[in-house]
């Protein structure tokens, strides 16, 4: 269900950008979404399709770049990506004192406009 809320934000924010920059026809919307956000791409695309009907964004394609969770170890400085559902432990030294440095993104990255 949260994909629908995210799709609504996409429609509102892209329409705003299109208005302010005078963009006519947007063909592609590129997003960066962190793995921790648990976004199902199909659900997001479907939500966008429904919500963008009757707007200038109808028919635009959604392209999602999934950003993996990355953790930085406070003990040894190693950067690693834990598999989803697995413990956040440093694979280099085994420490659990780690900080998440990516994986929470929920970003509108760029738009492609038909020339």
């Amino acid at each position, binding site marked *: 269900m949260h994909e629908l809320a995210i799709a609504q*934000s996409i429609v509102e924010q892209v329409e705003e950008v299109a208005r302010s*920059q005078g963009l006519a026809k947007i063909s592609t919307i590129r997003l960066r979404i962190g793995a921790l956000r648990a976004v199902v791409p199909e659900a997001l695309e479907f939500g966008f399709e429904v919500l963008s009907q009757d707007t200038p964004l109808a028919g635009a394609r959604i392209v999602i770049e999934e950003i993996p969770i990355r953790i930085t170890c406070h003990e040894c400085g190693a950067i690693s990506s834990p598999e989803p559902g697995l413990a*956040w432990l440093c694979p280099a030294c085994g420490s659990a004192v780690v900080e*998440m440095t990516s994986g929470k993104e*929920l970003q509108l990255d760029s738009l492609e406009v038909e020339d």
Partner: protein
Amino acid sequence: MEIRVVENLLKANEAVAAQTLERLAKHGVRAINMIGSAGSGKTALLEATLPRLRESLGVAVIEGDLQTTRDAERIDRIGVPVVQVTTGKSCHLPPQLVLRALDGLDLDAIDLLFIENVGNLICPSEIPVGEHHKVAVLSTPEGDDKVLKYPMLFHLADAVVINKIDLLPHVTCDVGRIRSDLEQVGSRAQIFEVSARTGEGLDGYIGWLLGLVG
């Protein structure tokens, strides 16, 4: 032609949440976003703690649900100011509704405001409502695998309340696993094992809540 934008998709929500925080700050109110599954005991926990908190603090509740005013009625019955927000179809409390709900409360009389989110572990942890602290409520019948399944909430939570501890003999739930999983999702949360029904373990949680108010 490609146009770079780079905007946070939650920026509209975050802007409204910031307005709520600003308004709360003017009246010296600290707000807690309570997040947990449907049936984990969020309302029961409020019923068990509010009468004791009220002895030394001004408390109030914003209740979020898809439908019905049942939870608000439960809080009203113990004599604590409450505003019910029904979200209709939304699986989380939108910050706009929380901001509006503040109009129904006497903020000057409140030190600690509890915002009980819609029962769900995903969306409420993503959408800020204008809170200072997040409290995650888990219950033992849900099992011990929720932390790794929903790491976002448990990574962000300032406190994790493991409720229904009195049911441990009857359910399959290893509290030790919950604790070690919390460490492994980088949690810095205070952990409280409680039973809202019997009152076991509530002293520690109440002490933590009291400590939030300067």
